[in-house]
């Protein structure tokens, strides 16, 4: 028996207690000869912390939601080889199906290899593609051709063909080109880039090196959100290890290709997810976008020509080189090739990271992989692409996931966030939520975005507060078009999307808020009316005692009443009533 135990330590796992679990396991396994390893995120976040037990390289048991108190059981099992004690911790068949239904390319090593060991990456085939290219196997043109055949498109949101970007950059004769990886994952609901960097940094580095070779860049920069400290730490370490092994620096793997790497931590600005703003931010300036052209690929008087791709895009590159462009193109639909990683969250039973082939339907992802709605709720909509995206209602759940089809339905693949909402979510409230976000994140450079988002936010605020006016919907639509058509950068141009798509599919909710002063989801506090049903009230006084503003009157054992003029709609009465006498509408 030669067992190996690993603990999943991505940010999610650590937040769920993987660190404490690992600390509890370490002394128990010390001296037994059974190694205890760290791996990244397998993507089954709802089951964290996760412990895997391998026997001679094969997964023998996957234990889920493991608590530090259970460490002795695990230690006993691997010491004796008798797994009966840990049977209750084993993942269920139903939950395992979450993984088996996926096609993992970008996430192929996540949760399996040790992100803090280059040897672990090398054992899983890391740097083989780079080796093949640099040993004379492929010229830069051949690399670009291979990516062209694969049909790989940018995974950051825009979906622009990767080969075309690389080819354009290659055409520029400038000697000082640079390759930038955009890991400024600002969409509040996406964490795919973070998971890749935390779990498999060498795949990103290898993909970037291949990209740098193809376009002829000697400098590679990873622009990461500062909010991802663990990702930055692991990437720094990986770069150091790769440099020691000769994969980064001059004359990589003995070839004539040289490339330097550095990390730049962003400082919290959503607008920097856009190419031109990101480049400004790299120049120690305020991260404000500028007009294109000149495109980043071109050199101008201030900037070196730059090629920018997203983390997930790079994570696919080495696989494509190893397996051939055709193998990648064989997966997916006519319009969109390969796979896409989604961060599946919200009111979903199994929330986590999924990598699925393009062409799967939303229903399959949400119900077959995600297990449907949690806590017995009813599906209402799924929001895709965050502040730049839109929502898709129940009636369109059979929409397939590919760029064109999603765009026609009013959503975008975007950075891969998929937030599932149930009937307790107010769609007007969601539109306001996203506008609050963009109005806060607008850089203020162009008027339409700065003032347009502010006005839309104001209108939505008054609608959810019960002060909506007739004509507000038309005004919103007019503003949506104006901002979309004339904002300077993609943040502004796409900012109206959440409003447009909720207006398209949930117009009745807007109308209920404005005309009837009613929130169908019962979440907009300004529109709630609490009432005590006299036939159910036993006069126990619990509501009156819990009301913070003394808005409830009544005598003991007699029916109570809420004074609507002083009620602050906090819901304490409803929460404290044991007889279900308090209703809200």
């Amino acid at each position, binding site marked *: 028996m030669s067992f190996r135990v690993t603990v999943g330590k991505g*940010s*999610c796992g*650590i*937040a*769920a207690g993987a660190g404490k679990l690992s600390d509890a396991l370490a002394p128990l396994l010390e001296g037994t000869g059974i190694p205890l390893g760290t791996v990244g995120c397998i993507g089954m*976040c*709802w089951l*964290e912390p996760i412990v895997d037990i391998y026997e001679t390289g094969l997964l023998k048991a996957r234990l889920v939601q493991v608590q530090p108190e259970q460490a002795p059981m695990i230690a006993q099992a691997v010491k004796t080889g008798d797994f009966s004690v840990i049977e209750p911790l084993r993942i269920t068949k139903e939950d395992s199906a979450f993984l088996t239904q996926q096609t993992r390319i970008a996430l192929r090593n996540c949760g399996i290899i040790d992100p803090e060991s280059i040897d672990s990456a090398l054992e899983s085939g890391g740097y083989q593609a780079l080796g093949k290219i640099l040993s004379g196997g492929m010229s830069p043109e051949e690399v670009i051709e291979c990516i062209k055949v694969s049909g790989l498109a940018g995974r950051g949101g825009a979906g622009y063909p990767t080969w075309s970007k690389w080819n354009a950059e290659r055409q520029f004769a400038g000697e000082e080109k640079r390759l930038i990886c955009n890991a400024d*994952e*600002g*969409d*509040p*609901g*996406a*964490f795919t880039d*973070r998971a890749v960097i935390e779990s498999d940094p060498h795949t990103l580095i290898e993909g970037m090196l291949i990209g740098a070779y193809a376009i002829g860049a000697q400098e590679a920069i990873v622009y990461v959100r*500062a*909010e*991802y400290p663990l990702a930055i730490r692991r990437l720094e370490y990986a770069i150091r290890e790769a440099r020691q092994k000769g994969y980064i620096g001059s004359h990589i793997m003995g070839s004539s290709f040289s490339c330097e790497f550095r990390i*730049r*931590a*962003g*400082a*919290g*600005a*959503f607008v920097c997810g856009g190419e031109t703003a990101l480049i400004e*931010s*790299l*120049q*120690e*300036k*305020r*991260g404000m976008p500028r007009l294109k052209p000149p495109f980043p690929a071109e050199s101008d008087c201030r900037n070196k020509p730059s090629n920018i791709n997203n983390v997930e895009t790079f994570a696919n590159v080495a696989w494509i080189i190893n397996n051939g462009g055709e193998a990648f193109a064989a997966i997916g639909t006519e319009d969109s090739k390969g796979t896409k990683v989604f*961060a599946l*969250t*919200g*009111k979903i039973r199994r*929330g*986590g990271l999924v990598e699925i082939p393009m062409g799967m339907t939303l229903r399959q992802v949400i119900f077959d992989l995600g297990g449907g709605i949690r806590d017995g709720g009813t599906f209402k909509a799924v*929001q895709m692409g*965050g502040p730049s995206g839109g929502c898709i209602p129940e009636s369109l759940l059979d929409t397939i996931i590919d760029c064109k089809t999603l765009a026609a339905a009013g959503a975008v693949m975007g950075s891969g*966030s998929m*937030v599932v*909402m149930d009937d307790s*979510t107010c769609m007007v409230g*969601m539109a306001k*939520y996203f506008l609050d*976000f963009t109005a806060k*994140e607008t*850089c203020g450079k162009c008027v339409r975005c700065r003032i347009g988002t502010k006005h839309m936010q104001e209108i939505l605020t008054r609608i959810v507060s019960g002060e909506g006016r007739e004509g507000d919907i038309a005004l919103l639509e007019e503003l949506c078009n104006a901002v979309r058509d004339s904002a300077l950068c993609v943040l502004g141009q796409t900012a109206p999307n959440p409003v447009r798509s909720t207006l398209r599919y949930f117009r009745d909710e807007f109308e209920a808020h404005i005309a009837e002063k009613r929130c169908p989801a019962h979440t907009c506090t300004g529109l709630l009316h609490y009432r005590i049903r006299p036939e159910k009230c036993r006069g126990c006084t619990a509501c009156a005692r819990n009301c913070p503003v003394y808005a409830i009157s009544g005598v003991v054992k007699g029916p109570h009443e809420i004074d609507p003029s002083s009620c602050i709609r906090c819901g304490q009465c409803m929460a404290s009533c044991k007889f279900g006498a308090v209703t809200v509408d």
Partner: protein
Amino acid sequence: MQCQCAANGSDLSLLEPVLAEYADIRGSLTTVLQHAQEIYGYLPYDVICHITEKTGLTPARVLGAATFYSQFRSQPTGKYLIMLCDGTACHVNGSARIAAAVQEYLHVENGGTTEDGLFSFSIVACLGCCSLSPVMTINEETYGALTPAKVLEILKDIRAKEAAK
């Protein structure tokens, strides 16, 4: 530039190693500011003036960057910095209720610090732990699957621990 500001009395020597490493590298202003904030907990005005002098950048450039990015703070924070996530997933799963619980218990506004200087509270965009939503971090520690009751327990624990010191 001769700095005319009222000095905050920051120990500028702490910044020397950072400036020695980055002052001459173009494009490293954000990095310098990030290190400075790590050292001082925020960006005191005299530190910004000092960076301006040492890097040779214009005050407009340095202050411009320091005020543009949400990571940088111009006010000191409390001993415990609570960052409550209001990303989409946390929002859908009730981060507003958590915010209300924190604000009511600590009597602190978003972006504010408690009178005793113990807690600062800030509502932030996504922390990237969406599947554990609603989520908050207190300094380095992350807390997931929050409920108002759970948050109060966490905050009371910290208060009790501090009172015992």
